[in-house]
């Protein structure tokens, strides 16, 4: 295998891959260009535009859905900045990290900006991230910013249970986590395994909310409920199975998914529980990125009102307080519903995921 690629080879790759507009790929200019990422100069904005114009292209790797989010983002971005050609690739967070890590080790970095739930902490773990500054974060609540400047947040997710309204009568809908322990739900609860936003997140929520001792006691009781391990497909797919009547109740799904189907008449609903877990999708600019100006320009576009509105239109919850989510989704925002929220930060996710996965292995697998 060609592990020890020489610098010369890497530059050849760079040179060939880059479009006609940016034919030079000298290490010096790459290093100098990265300075823009942390610049707070007065003419910063102008420098970004000028630099992006020279770079002429930007590549986004994101976990956001292509048709609803990435394509409209690219169209709007290129309309606003016609001199930058934006292309994108979609993968799960884990795949994005694997791909970018491989590119970085090979000195063949294609991605300029990466985005997804959990991207921030995984990227820091994989040493992919470099600090960047954008005044856009001023518009965001404190908890959606990283004190080290490695990532910014892009969208929020709220988690709840989904239940089939035909199979779960209104007076029996579990309203609290303890209601899930009712023997009538034995073998009727399903949760999603094989991803950090599935079972580990649910277990982490309970651990953070109740403390280790009480959480363990709760898990012991929950284990007797024989929760079904749903292992193929996303949280969205699990909600579809609930609609189909395969599972009456699904735990820890994205709270807005049932609402979207419910609006079409599907027999499904969300039920928030105290506390409602929430996480934020994050965005980083990889180290040694090839088009730093264009990357920053795109990051700022995604954080702008315009970019956040595109995410809102794609059924995501924007991080900017001045961009409201769709009306139909508002009922699962904890502050509006009057249910306490537990925001689980990237750092907490990082800290708890491994031990929560072990809890799952020991008690539920």
């Amino acid at each position, binding site marked *: 295998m060609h592990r020890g690629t020489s610098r010369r080879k890497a530059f050849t790759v760079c040179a060939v891959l880059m479009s006609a507009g940016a034919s030079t790929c000298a290490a010096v200019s790459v290093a100098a260009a990265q300075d823009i990422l942390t610049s707070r100069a007065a003419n910063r904005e102008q420098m970004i535009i000028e630099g992006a114009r020279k770079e002429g292209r930007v590549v986004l790797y994101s976990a956001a859905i292509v*048709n609803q989010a990435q394509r409209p983002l690219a169209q709007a971005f290129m309309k606003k900045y016609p001199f930058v050609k934006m292309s994108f690739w979609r993968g799960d967070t884990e795949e994005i990290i*694997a791909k970018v890590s491989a590119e970085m080790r090979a000195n063949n970095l294609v991605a300029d900006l990466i985005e997804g739930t959990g991207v921030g902490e995984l990227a820091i773990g994989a040493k992919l991230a470099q600090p960047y500054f954008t005044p856009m974060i001023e518009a965001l609540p404190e908890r959606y910013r990283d004190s080290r400047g490695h990532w910014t947040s892009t969208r929020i997710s709220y988690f709840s249970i989904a239940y089939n309204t035909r199979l779960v009568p209104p007076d029996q809908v579990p309203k609290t986590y303890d209601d899930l322990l009712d023997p009538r739900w034995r073998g009727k609860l399903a949760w999603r395994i094989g991803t950090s936003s599935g079972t580990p997140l649910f277990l982490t929520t309970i651990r953070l909310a109740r403390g280790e001792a009480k959480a363990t006691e709760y898990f012991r009781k929950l284990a007797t409920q024989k929760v079904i*391990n749903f292992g193929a497909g996303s949280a969205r797919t699990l909600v579809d199975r609930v609609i*189909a009547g395969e599972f009456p109740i699904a735990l820890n799904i994205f709270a807005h998914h049932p609402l979207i189907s419910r609006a079409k*008449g599907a027999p499904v609903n969300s039920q928030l529980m105290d506390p409602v877990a929430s996480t934020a999708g994050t965005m980083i600019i990889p180290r040694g990125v090839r088009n730093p100006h264009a990357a920053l320009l795109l990051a700022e576009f995604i954080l702008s009102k315009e970019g956040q509105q595109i995410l809102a239109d794609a059924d995501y919850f924007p991080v900017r307080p001045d961009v409201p989510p769709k009306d139909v989704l508002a009922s699962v925002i904890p502050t509006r519903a009057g249910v306490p929220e537990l925001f689980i930060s990237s750092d907490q996710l990082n800290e708890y995921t491994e031990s929560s996965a072990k809890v799952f292995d020991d008690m539920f697998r």
Partner: protein
Amino acid sequence: MTVRSESRGTTGALLAALPKIPAISPLVAVLIAILLVLIVPPAIFLLRISLHETLPDGSLGPFTLRFYESLFTGRFFLPSLYNTMIYSFGSALIAIVIGTVQALIVERTNTPGRNLAIFGAIISLGVPHILYTVAWLLLLGRSGPLNDLIALITQQPQAINVYSMWGMILIEGIGFVPLTFLLMSAVFRSMDASFEEAAIVAGASPLRAFWEVTIGMGVPAICALAMLIFIRTFESFEVPALVGLAGNINVLTTTIYQSARRTGATNYGESGAYAICLVLIVTVLLIWQNNLARNAHRYQTITGKGFRPRIVDLGGWRYVSAALLLVLFLFVTVIPAAILVFTSFLPFYEGVSLESFGRMSLDNYSVLFGPGSFRDSILNTLILGASTATIVVPFTALCAWLVVRQVKGAVLLDHLTMLPLVFPAIILGVAFLNIFVNMPFPLYGTLLSVIIASSVRYLSYGMRYAYAGALQIQPDLEGQASVSGASGASVFRRVVLPLMAPTLINSWLLVFLLSVQAVSVPLLLVGPGSEVMAVTLFELWQNGQVTELASMGVLWMLLMTAVSAVFHMLTRQHQINA
């Protein structure tokens, strides 16, 4: 080039496998070199990843044996291995029995409905595996029409629990019926009737002649196919994940999946260790199969004489066999396709009811035909499938022929081409990602890189097909051509290839259909601009509603059926001309 080899025993074949370079024929050496270049890098990657910790940045950390240790000592391994065995064996059995019976009826009897069976098999092969599984779950699930029907009759709700071992075996096994049917058809079609006639003349009853001669001579092909299905099932993921996990039945792949994906960062060590063990198991199976092929001359049925398979007149019974074909057509093709079509018009799926008919609309299709979606990727997909098949089929035909003729060193070709089958697809994807991204020329992210990776991935399928085809050709024909002055190359091109044509045509179509629907390998290899449909489909599966997935599945099915139909018409024309 030596066309005919001396008959040699197992020891001889094994000796030939040893790296005595001067003893290997130059052609075999070249082919081995090509395969080594393609297969060794991912194999080394696999071995290294199984012996090292994977660091968070995806690079390899310190040496460790813990993945092997946890594989054998973990409380999940043995029960999953046991389940895997039952599941793989059961599925292979169902596929082989049903597919072979179907092929016999179609090829060897005067039962009407032959084209229906071929047509049905081809449509089914065009349905991506994940969709096929979803279709069966919609059908047999707790709220599916079958359970509703039983509840209506017996008043017992949800009587069928598809999330069980039998559910897994049934869905996986039936999924392989079209493949078995097409392969066995090719085998029976090229079988000389004079053998059976000779048996009858010698006093055997027609039934006994049929059983001992026809089935008996099909044994190597059946074994080769059974092994292919067994291995494929061994490493299958869709059915174990969708059906098995929900019923708390773990097989090896789902156990590995749970270990690898338990937290965010993927750790491939355990999957690597598992794959290495699988490589060893398959090597043992291959050696066993080579022993079988040692007596290959017993199974050669394509001789220099003109022949036609003997068609048995079933008389009145042919209506029974026709009904059987119809039932198979319904279960293997129509019902799964119908439920997908039905679902594709719905805003959401909640079982089959009169109510749901009222909700039908074309909304899901309008999403598909929206901007971009998969119009971008259709051309890429067709190029991918056609290129992969066109690379794999002639290459494996040559390899298989050399293996069957026991040309020195050729047994290595057999082993090498089978290796990619046991690489878990996701690992193969990661391995090729790491290889291509380090290439000194811009291969990474291109469609060409996906074609190379998928050619490697489907070599084994091409090889099994070609092997079964090559096994039946008597060396006399080639000998006669050689004696008449034909060179080795022209013997292969003008004698062997045409005789293998029926098998190779099916092989091409199979590799095409498999490579266009693969997800795991292209997932990480495609870049902006080289997307393929299967990945888009997978994205829908991951993020979209099942109804949108169904609509894309229907479109996919139509496209693949059209491709297959055109292909069949072209080849039929060719066969008639030939």
